[in-house]
């Protein structure tokens, strides 16, 4: 069972990892204490509070993992996956910009968090592209089905 589950999830491992990271970030934000007090989150705080961010990230992460597990068995799952990727990329891009725009002391280079959040944004972007291809393959938007019905009735 473990082997078959691993094989099933192999092609979606990147997205699964990103969803797990999303949940982990959500839980971290919900943890008691003020994470957003650090100046590195200054731009992020403009858009959402720590509690909102925590709940939002954990729920999207869990929904995204569920969509990944049932992917293929439910025709519209790539749409749910795209929504997850867009949420993730929105978060990581905003975070990267927030980290990049923080005031640094004289002679200090950019923090490693900038590289991490930038890379995570690129990975989310790549996953969204793959979801787009999967949505077409599964006909998630039902466009092919509609066209086939029209041609049958004509």
């Amino acid at each position, binding site marked *: 069972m473990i082997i078959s589950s691993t094989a099933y999830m192999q092609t979606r491992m990147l997205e699964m990892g990103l969803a797990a990271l999303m949940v982990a970030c959500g839980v971290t934000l919900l943890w008691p204490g003020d994470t957003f007090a650090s100046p590195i989150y200054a*731009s992020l705080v*403009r*858009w959402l509070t720590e509690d909102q961010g925590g709940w939002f990230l954990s729920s999207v992460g869990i929904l995204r993992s569920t969509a990944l597990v049932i992917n293929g068995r439910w025709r519209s799952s790539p749409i749910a996956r*795209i929504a997850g*990727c*867009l*949420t993730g*990329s*929105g*978060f*990581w*891009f*905003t975070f990267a*910009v*927030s980290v990049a*725009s923080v005031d640094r002391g004289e002679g200090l280079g950019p923090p490693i968090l900038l590289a991490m959040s930038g890379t995570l*944004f690129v990975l*989310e*972007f790549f996953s*969204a*592209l*793959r*979801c*787009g*291809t999967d*949505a*077409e*393959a599964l006909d998630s*938007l039902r*466009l*092919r*089905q509609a066209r*086939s019905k029209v041609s049958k009735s004509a």
Partner: protein
Amino acid sequence: MLELKDIAPLLGVLLPAIGAIFMYRAAERQRAREVDKAVQSAPLGVVAAITDKDAGVQMAAAIGELADAVRKAVAIMREERDDQARRHQIDRALDEMTAVRREFQELVHLLKQRS
């Protein structure tokens, strides 16, 4: 003046969304090209034209029945062959029917793979 941090969430969502739409359209165009190419050559053309899963299953069952009918006809002709003087014509007919049966089988195999 508008700064990057003012539109960061919007950009972060919009860029991959545009990318996903682009990939969807690209995959659609590629599928259309493949279908066009497949339509040129039978039996793949028939398989490519079937986009509905149920239609594929029904088609596979119907062709399976046809293949069985051809198999029975071949068996009957083989029995007749021993009594006939015109063996050459019967041999040709048998060869053609066998080829048709193989095409049917190939079609069924492809349909089963797709559906």
